[in-house]
């Protein structure tokens, strides 16, 4: 536990020093969202209908941005060796990294999602469910992203492979998350969709760190 907290505080200290990474993901999220009114026209009703889907797709794409550096930076400068020798099992090391990733990108996206949705004329009634879905969704995406980042570590052009790995794995998250917000807009209960999203998280939480930990060990061989 002490080691886990030590690694997590190291991650947070590093991202505090490199706020540009967080800011880049956040600005990408907002800018990508702003492209939709330009592309499909500013008709308020069309935008309001599409708003939850737009927010979800933009959030998914924005979480891809910092993945390349998640393990890549530590791998290049030898820090990953030191982290693996810290006595923390690789799976917990990945969990600490994913937690740091969520705090520095998932959480800011969550905070920016409501303003973006309102700007796209989303029905205010769907906001709580949209945000609840994004809370579960960004946690899933941080774990899936950590798994993908560990898998492509050391591969040539790994940054190009990353979206190809993450996007198919993230489709269930996108489907259930957007469906929950749509259900509220249609007057239905979002409960089953949110529960399925929680189930995805419950499955990802143990599986992704263990698989990513094994991938990290293999990358350093």
């Amino acid at each position, binding site marked *: 536990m002490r080691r886990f907290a030590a690694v997590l505080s190291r991650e947070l200290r590093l991202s505090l020093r490199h706020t540009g990474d967080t800011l880049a993901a956040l600005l990408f999220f907002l800018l990508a969202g702003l492209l939709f009114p330009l592309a499909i026209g500013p008709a308020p009703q069309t935008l309001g209908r599409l708003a939850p889907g737009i927010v979800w797709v933009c959030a998914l794409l924005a979480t891809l941005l910092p993945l390349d550096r998640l393990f890549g930076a530590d791998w290049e*400068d*030898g*820090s990953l060796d*030191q982290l693996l020798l810290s*006595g923390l099992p*690789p799976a917990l090391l990945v969990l600490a990294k994913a937690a740091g990733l969520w705090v520095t990108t998932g959480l800011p996206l969550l905070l920016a999602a409501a303003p973006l949705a309102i700007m796209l004329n989303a029905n205010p009634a769907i906001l709580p469910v949209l945000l609840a879905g994004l809370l579960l969704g960004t946690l899933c995406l941080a774990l899936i992203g950590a798994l993908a980042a560990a898998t492509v570590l050391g591969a040539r052009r790994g940054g190009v492979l990353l979206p190809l790995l993450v996007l198919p794995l993230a489709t269930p998250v996108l489907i259930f998350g957007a469906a929950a917000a749509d259900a509220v807009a249609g007057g239905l209960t979002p409960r089953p969709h949110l529960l399925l999203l929680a189930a995805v998280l419950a499955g990802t939480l143990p599986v992704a760190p263990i698989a990513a930990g094994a991938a990290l060990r293999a990358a*350093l*061989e």
Partner: protein
Amino acid sequence: MRLQAEELVVFRSERLVLDGVSLAVPAGGALLLLGPNGAGKSTLLRVLAGLKRPDAGRLSWDGADALAEPAAHGASVGYLGHQDAIKPGLTVLENLALAARLGRRPPADSLAALDLLALAGLPSRLLSAGQRRRLALARLHLAGAPLWLLDEPSLGLDAASVERLGALIAGHRAAGGVVVVATHVELPLPDAARLPLG
């Protein structure tokens, strides 16, 4: 505390890098790995650290099988690789934060041992190559692991710093620690055993 390896074999793709290497280092002992470039010194150090799994052979530390629990073995390893693992965006002191939380020594002692105390607040990107190496050595000292595995520790160090490195290793051995060093140059390591590779 005793490091023992028997008949370690490592292949790198099709090439045989280590062919049946055996070694034993008792508590307070030092072992120098010698050999030309590509003889497998760095590979052997990574195997001893548990970072690389050998294709055959046994490795034990303190009587326990080190290959069965690499994460637990890692906690007793202080590894200094080719790279210094220093984050340029953090200050000298901040780079030691993780080791300071896991170790027992005050960071100031380790900085003083490598003559870095005056630079403690400096961003690490301003350090020279030798100073970065000294910072990596300070982290090693700070973490206080009983098994030190050093890959070319004198890389980029000036004469005075090599003397400090010698004192650091002597102190580590006096406290019962074990040290294995891969090197091409003479280091101030009296009565160290030698293992030629390649």
